C-alpha cells in the first residue's frame, strides 16, 4: 500500500515538475521575444533617450545649471541626474509594454499566446519583464550619459537605488499593460503617456525640490504620485528626499499588488483580447 502511495506521489510530482518546466520555457520564450523586439528597433527605443538626456544635461546641467546654483546642497546637474534617470525609466517601461501588447492585439499575434497553454500570470509576467529590461537598460544608458557630464557622481545607497529602479519599472510596465488592454487604436496608447504621465513626471520633482515651491503648490505636489517615485530614487542616489521613504516604498509596492491583480482579472475576463 505504501509503495503505491509513493508511486502516486512520485507520479504527481513528476507531472508537476514537467508542468513547471513547460511554463518556465514559455515565460522565457515570451521574455526573450519582448527583449528581442526592442533591441531589433534600437534606433527607436535605445538611442532617443540617450540623445534627449544628453540635451537636458547640456542645456539645463552645463549651460543653465551653474546660474541656478545648488539644489538641496548639490550641484544642479548632480541633483537632476536621478530625476532624469527616473523620467527615462518610467516612460520607457510604460511605452514598451503599451506599444508591444497593443501591437500583438493589433496584429492578432495575441492569438499565438491565447491558443497556447501559457497561464495568464505567465503572459503578464513576460510582458512586464520585457518592460523592466528596457527600463533598466535605458536607466543604465542615461546614467552612463550623465557620467560624461558629471564624472564624479557617486551613488549614496546602491541597494535602495536598485530596488526603487526595479519597482518603478515593474509598476509602470503594469500601467502600460492596462492601457494596452483597453486601447482600441494607436491614439489610445499615446494619450495617457503624453497628457498624463509626462506632465506628472515633470511636475514630480525631476528638475526641482518641492521645498522651493510656495506652500499651496507644495501641498498640491504632494498629491502627485510621481513625486514619491522620483524622490525615493533620489534618496537612493543622492541621500536626499522631499518625502518619507518607507511610506513611498509601501505605496509603490501596494500599487504593484493592486495593478497585478487588476491585470490578471482583465486577462481572465478576456477584456480587449477575447470576444
Amino acid at each position, binding site marked *: 500500500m505504501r509503495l503505491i502511495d509513493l508511486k502516486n506521489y512520485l507520479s504527481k510530482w513528476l507531472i508537476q515538475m514537467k508542468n513547471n*518546466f*513547460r*511554463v518556465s*520555457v*514559455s515565460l*522565457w*520564450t*515570451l521574455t*526573450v*521575444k519582448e527583449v*528581442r523586439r526592442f533591441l*531589433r528597433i534600437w534606433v527607436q527605443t535605445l538611442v532617443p533617450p540617450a540623445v534627449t538626456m544628453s540635451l537636458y544635461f547640456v542645456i539645463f546641467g552645463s549651460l543653465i545649471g551653474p546660474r541656478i546654483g545648488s539644489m538641496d546642497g548639490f550641484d544642479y546637474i548632480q541633483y537632476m541626474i536621478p530625476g532624469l534617470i527616473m523620467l527615462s525609466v518610467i516612460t520607457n517601461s510604460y511605452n514598451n509594454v503599451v506599444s508591444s501588447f497593443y*501591437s*500583438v492585439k493589433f*496584429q*492578432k*499575434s*495575441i*492569438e*499565438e*499566446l*491565447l*491558443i*497556447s*497553454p*501559457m*497561464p495568464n500570470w505567465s503572459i503578464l509576467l513576460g510582458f512586464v519583464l520585457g518592460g523592466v529590461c528596457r527600463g533598466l537598460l535605458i536607466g543604465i544608458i542615461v546614467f552612463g550619459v550623465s557620467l560624461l557630464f558629471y564624472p564624479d557622481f557617486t551613488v549614496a545607497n546602491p541597494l535602495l537605488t536598485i530596488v526603487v529602479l526595479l519597482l518603478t519599472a515593474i509598476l509602470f510596465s503594469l500601467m502600460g499593460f492596462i492601457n494596452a488592454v483597453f486601447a482600441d487604436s494607436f491614439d489610445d496608447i499615446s494619450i495617457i503617456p503624453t497628457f498624463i504621465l509626462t506632465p506628472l513626471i515633470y511636475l514630480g520633482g525631476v528638475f526641482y525640490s518641492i521645498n522651493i515651491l510656495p506652500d499651496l503648490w507644495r501641498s498640491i505636489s504632494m498629491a502627485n504620485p510621481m513625486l514619491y517615485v522620483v524622490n525615493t530614487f533620489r534618496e537612493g542616489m543622492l541621500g536626499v528626499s522631499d518625502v518619507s521613504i518607507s511610506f513611498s516604498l509601501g505605496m509603490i509596492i501596494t500599487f504593484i499588488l493592486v495593478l497585478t491583480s487588476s491585470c490578471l482579472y482583465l486577462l481572465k475576463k*478576456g477584456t480587449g483580447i*477575447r*470576444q
Partner: protein
Amino acid sequence: MAEYALEINNLQKVYDNNIVALKGIDLKVAKGDFYALLGPNGAGKSSTIGIIGSLVTKTAGKVSVFGNDIDTDLNKAKSLLGVVSQEINFSQFEKVLDIVVTQAGFYGIPKSTAMPKVENILKRLGLWDKRNVQARTLSGGYKRRLMIAKALIHEPQLLILDEPTAGVDIELRREMWSFLKEINKNGTTIILTTHYLEEAEQLCRNIGIIDHGTIVADTSMKDLLGRLNVQGFVFDLDHPLDEAPVIEGFPLKLEDPLTLVAAVNKDRSINALFSELTKLNIKIKSMRNEANRLEELFIEMVNSNEK
C-alpha cells in the same frame, strides 16, 4: 480514453452587441476523422472555432478536446489542439524561423528540442529556404504555409483549419491538400472550414453544415452526396449544334454550340441517354461530371433552413 477528438454540447454564443452567433449546437468529431464544417459567411463557423481555441468566450455549453473539458482542463485541451486561423496572426516583422521557434516555446518546447522539429516542418512545407526572411515579405501562399507550420509545431492531435486555402493558387492548394491528407493518415484529427466545397469533397470523410448558428446537417460525405437525386454531366461535342436536342426524361441544355449539359436522374441509366444521342447522330468527344455536386446540396440545405 475519450471516444471523440472534439465533443460540443449545446454551445451558445451571444456577442456583446446581442448578435446570436450560436444557438446551442451539438457536434461530435471522432478521433482520426477528417471533418468539414461548412456554412455561409456569418453562419457561426469562426465563433465555434474561436471558442474551441479560447479566442472567443462562450455564453453557454460544453466543449471537450479528447475528453478534456475547456472549463476544467483548459491547458490540457490547449496542448492537444492546433489552430490555423482565418487571418494572418503572426508578427510580420519577425523571421520565419523565429516565429515557429517562438510558437514552440509558448508550448513549453525549448529551442534546442524544437529546432529539429522546426527544420522538419519547414522543409515539408517548402519554407526552409525562406527561414531567415522577415514574414512580411512572404507571399500570401507562403504566409498560409507558415500558419500551418506554427499550428503543427507542438504536434497537436487535433488540427483545426479555418479556411486555410483562401486566396491560395490552385497548385499550392493541391500541395496543401496532399500535406493535410498525409498528416491525417498519420493520426491527426482534422477539422476544416472552407468556402471551396470541392476541397471538402476531396478531403473530408464527414461533414457538418452550420447556418444561422444551428447545425443543419451532420453526416458522412458519402451519405450527403448520396442524397443528390440528379447528377450533372457535361458533354464535349464533335460537331456544333444550333439548339439542345429534346430527349424525354433527360433535360438537356446547350451551354455553347459544342457543350451540352445533361441532368440525369439517379434512377435512370446514362446508357439510355447515350443511345438517344447516337440515334440523333450526336457524337460525343469527351464527358465529365458537372462541378460542383456538393455545392448544389449546400445551397439547397442553407436555402431550406432560411425558409
